[in-house]
């Protein structure tokens, strides 16, 4: 079957020599690829050259002298807070925040989706509508109430506070994803498991979760990217000890004293972007597959 399909594709490409529209298509695609890759290129090349070369005005050229010193400096020497610690502790803060925030919001989203599709109760549509509404509330509106709540709970300025904020804010999206995914999941399977004597949670993790791979990947990527890249909540609710890497990077780049070390800034920005890049590269193909599944049967 696969062989057949590929031979058909081969003959087609051979029989129709590169037509004008196809050339145009590739030209546009390559142009866009360059457009998107150029900033990354500039960041990478400038992060591995000494500051003197940048100051000399050679921003677009490859480094004359390759060095990893800016990376090392950004990681554990740069002056960010009171002490010259580099981005290292803030990177750790972000990890400590993002892992529980993503895990909790994904699990809760899955449970919400499960209940909203398989244990329908009167008013389930309204509940779902309100949760969906949460996706559209701008961050800025909730800053002050959130600050009050975090203060009341006694977790203001801590990583726990940030985790809570991100879990609550992510819940709308994760619920939306899982509800739509489980909507297409056959209800008869849940009923069969009920007759077989499986409990609410047993059905969830023995029947639904094993079939939820694609949507879990989508949700994790989405949540990871959002929580990791968030700046506003990080800047508003983190004390000096809970600052996530996005805020630290801002402090690094915007520090007004001394010489602007562009190479260190570029290296720092790349360090801050690395985890999301890795997540995309590792799970990206599942991401597209997950977004598509449910749209097409099977």
């Amino acid at each position, binding site marked *: 079957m696969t062989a057949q399909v590929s031979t058909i594709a081969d003959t087609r490409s051979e029989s129709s020599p590169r037509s004008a529209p196809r050339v145009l298509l590739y030209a546009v695609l390559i142009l866009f690829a360059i457009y998107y890759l150029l900033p990354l290129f500039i960041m990478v090349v400038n992060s591995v050259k000494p500051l003197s070369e940048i100051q000399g005005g050679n921003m677009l050229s490859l480094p004359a002298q390759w060095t990893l010193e800016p990376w090392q400096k950004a990681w554990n020497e740069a002056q960010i807070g009171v002490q010259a610690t580099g981005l290292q502790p803030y990177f750790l803060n972000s990890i400590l925040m993002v892992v529980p925030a993503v895990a909790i919001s994904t699990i809760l989203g899955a449970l919400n989706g499960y209940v909203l599709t398989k244990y329908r109760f009167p008013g389930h549509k309204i509940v779902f509508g309100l949760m969906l509404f949460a996706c559209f509330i701008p961050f800025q509106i909730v800053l002050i109430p959130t600050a009050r709540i975090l203060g009341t709970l006694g977790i203001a300025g801590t990583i726990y506070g940030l985790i809570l904020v991100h879990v609550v804010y992510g819940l709308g999206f994760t619920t939306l994803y899982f509800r739509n995914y489980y909507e297409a999941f*056959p209800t*008869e*399977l849940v*009923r*069969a*498991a*009920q*007759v*077989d*004597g*499986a409990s609410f949670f*047993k059905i969830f993790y*023995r*029947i639904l979760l*094993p*079939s939820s791979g694609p949507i879990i990947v989508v949700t994790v990527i989405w949540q990871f990217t959002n929580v990791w890249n968030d700046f506003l909540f990080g800047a508003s609710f983190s004390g000096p000890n809970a600052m996530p890497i996005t805020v630290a990077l801002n402090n690094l780049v915007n520090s007004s004293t001394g010489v602007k070390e562009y190479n260190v800034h570029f290296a720092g920005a790349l360090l801050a972007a690395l985890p999301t890049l890795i997540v995309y590269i590792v799970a990206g193909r599942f991401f597209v597959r997950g977004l598509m599944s449910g749209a097409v049967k099977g």
Partner: protein
Amino acid sequence: MAFLEINRLEKSYGAMSVLKGINLAMEEGGFLVLVGPSGCGKSTLLNTIAGLESISSGEIKIAGRRVNDRRPSERDIAMVFQSYALYPNMTVAQNIAFGLEMRKVPKPERDKAVAEVAETLQIGHLLNRKPSQLSGGQRQRVAMGRALVRKPKLFLFDEPLSNLDAKLRVDMRTEIKRLHNSLGTTIVYVTHDQIEAMTLATKIAVLKDGHLQQFGTPAEIYNDPVNTFVADFMGSPPMNLVPGELVMSGKAYAVAIERDGTAPVVLPIANDRTVVSPAGQKVVLGIRPEAITDVDGADRNAKNVIRVSCRTEVVEPAGSDTFVVTRLGGKDVVARMRSDAAVKLHSTTDFAYNMDRAVLFDPASGNRVA
């Protein structure tokens, strides 16, 4: 005492009532088929027996125990679903053993039970496959295996054969009947296919719009339908329903039916019938196609066979029989002839009406009057 008892069962979703005062009772080892057109509430009724849907009022008893508020897992039932509902992430063996696992049966016992069921259903070679690797018929067997392995008091089947192709459906039907006979299990089975209902059931319940129309043995339902709905729904081709008028022919009742061109046909009613309507009343005569035959093919034991000449409109040879359509009382009337009966299209032929098997309905209400 009845094994499965349903008393005055009502079910409504908000203002919409889907089951209206259902009363049923079935003995142990029986095979109850719930049949009716789509939307009649038969699947809902099955789900309420299973406990998958709550009831609004009434009572359900299984083996003398009231189960209204029991969860599905506490009712000692097993269910086979229309889509089979096999767990896609588990192998066939795990699928079958899942119910036992949830009931904390130790692994060695589970394996033994799975092996026994696999033996019964001849699916031993499939145990390590995933459901996606099975054909429709194999999935069907696995779904039945999952129900059988727990040895529950009551089996529930929700249109289990409707996803199979015609030939496989007939095979599986026979298989289910054989299993029922050999294991002596009690079964409630939902279908919209009246042939499945007739072949499998020991008792049939015909439903329409949430009302129980008739509850009885297949023979009662087929030969003694309580109203025109049941008469029309059961049987293929369905019972002929011909409008006519009740008249007195001598001392006995008869039905006069209009016929194109010539004088009305007068068909006497068997003497042993109680007729509840007065003469002159409009009635609907119900007569099964097989009670209208060629003259040689008439039932020799019937006491009340009337010869009627009619013009044939359509002749449909079906191999084993030939169906002949004539016009009577403004309706098509189907007769079931032997395949070798000499019938010509558009010619006048003698038909033998076995009036022992005729029934009468009230044209307005559709209910039986004789």
